[in-house]
């Protein structure tokens, strides 16, 4: 799959997962498995980018004597989810069109 497209899909998934509730790195990797394959090194730049774009916020909490980074969705992130869905409506239209009569 095209690299940029994959990145966009991962961004969308992560934001959706955070919409359900704040989460942390390892949990996101596990939860994303239900939709797409995601490795730690693929997730990291996506989290950074979303942070730079202020689509999510980061905070640290103590957990079992160590520090863990948590991610939370922001209003910008919520808006991004809406934009993602709108953009992909156009993609779905083309998909349906190509698929039609192909069975």
């Amino acid at each position: 799959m095209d690299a940029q497209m994959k990145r966009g899909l991962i961004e969308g998934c992560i934001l959706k997962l955070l919409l359900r509730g704040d989460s942390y790195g390892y949990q996101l990797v596990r939860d994303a498995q239900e939709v797409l394959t995601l490795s730690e090194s693929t997730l990291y730049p996506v989290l950074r980018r979303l942070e730079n774009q202020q689509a999510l916020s980061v905070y640290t909490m103590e957990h079992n004597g160590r520090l863990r980074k948590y991610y939370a969705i922001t209003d910008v992130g919520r808006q991004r989810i809406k934009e993602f869905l709108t953009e992909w409506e156009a993609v779905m239209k083309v998909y349906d069109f190509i698929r039609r009569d192909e069975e």
Partner: protein
Amino acid sequence: MTREVFLKDLNCALSGLEAEEVDSILAYYSEMIDDRMEAGMTEEDAVNAMEPVDTIASRVLSEAEGEKDAPAAEQKNEPNEAEKEIRRPASEVKELVISAENQRVHLTSGDTEEIVLRYRIEDGDIYQLHEENGVLTLEHKHRPVSSYKLDPKKLTADNFFDEIGKFIGSINLGNLIQLGGITGETRCIEVMLPRIFKGKVTVKTSNARIMAEEVTCLDEMKLHTSNARAMLSHIVAHQLNIVSSNARIVLEDVYARQQLDAVTSNGRIVATKVVSDNGMHLRTSNGSVRVEEVDAKALAIKTSNGSISGTVKGRSEDYAIRSGTSNGKNNLVDCAEGEKQLVVKTSNANIALEFMG
């Protein structure tokens, strides 16, 4: 491998990145390993579940490279994915090459130490940026408008409508709109140089204008296009080579130290206040040439089926003159001797050049 060794290796592999970035990555992977161990894995299994250090490092470094190319898109409040901006320190660039297809190129200068390239990426565009040995190249290609290659030479009276029909039927409407064929919106690669640029500039495009103003280039400028105008104003260059076809070349206040060549066909050349310390060659066909206050040591103006008129600096005595036309009037008087050279040739049209003194 232990957690410590893994993190140490990763730290080494990431040297070259900013310390803050490295710390962030190490904390991220440290946390990943810890969480797996908490889930019941042994330290060794948790570390093995990570990707190899080399893989992680190369992904991080290639992301960092990608970020370098699009800083403007990330930092603006409304990132526009379709617009790209590339900045490079001008001191690092010995030669700038812009190669485009069906897209205008516009060169200007600004109070900057950088070369700034701005362009839009739209459906069907392929841009490649190369940097090697001081040569910065931006290459742009785009998919053809139609998938049926129409060969005008193979058209006959019998197949004409069939061929045209096939061509029109295969036109990719999206690409045609992008070309400006329907909406008239024309895209342009914007190039901004420092006020004085020490390197070479080469611009090649097709079917689209090249425009340049206020550029001082201490080396050679090559501006080539086809089927579209070249328009230059307030330019200084060591050497200037402008080529087009089926369109005009318009020059205003242009100075070349060594050589100025402006060549086109089926279009006029207009040169106002254009000076060369050495050679100047203005050549077209089926188009007129109009000069105002031009000056060169060796000036050649050639066309056909078009008039040559205007004013030349200096006195006629300064020039060794060779001129001629057919079926037209020529006000110049040929002369074998002179410090400077003037060659003026056309056909089926008049020559009317005045010397300003």
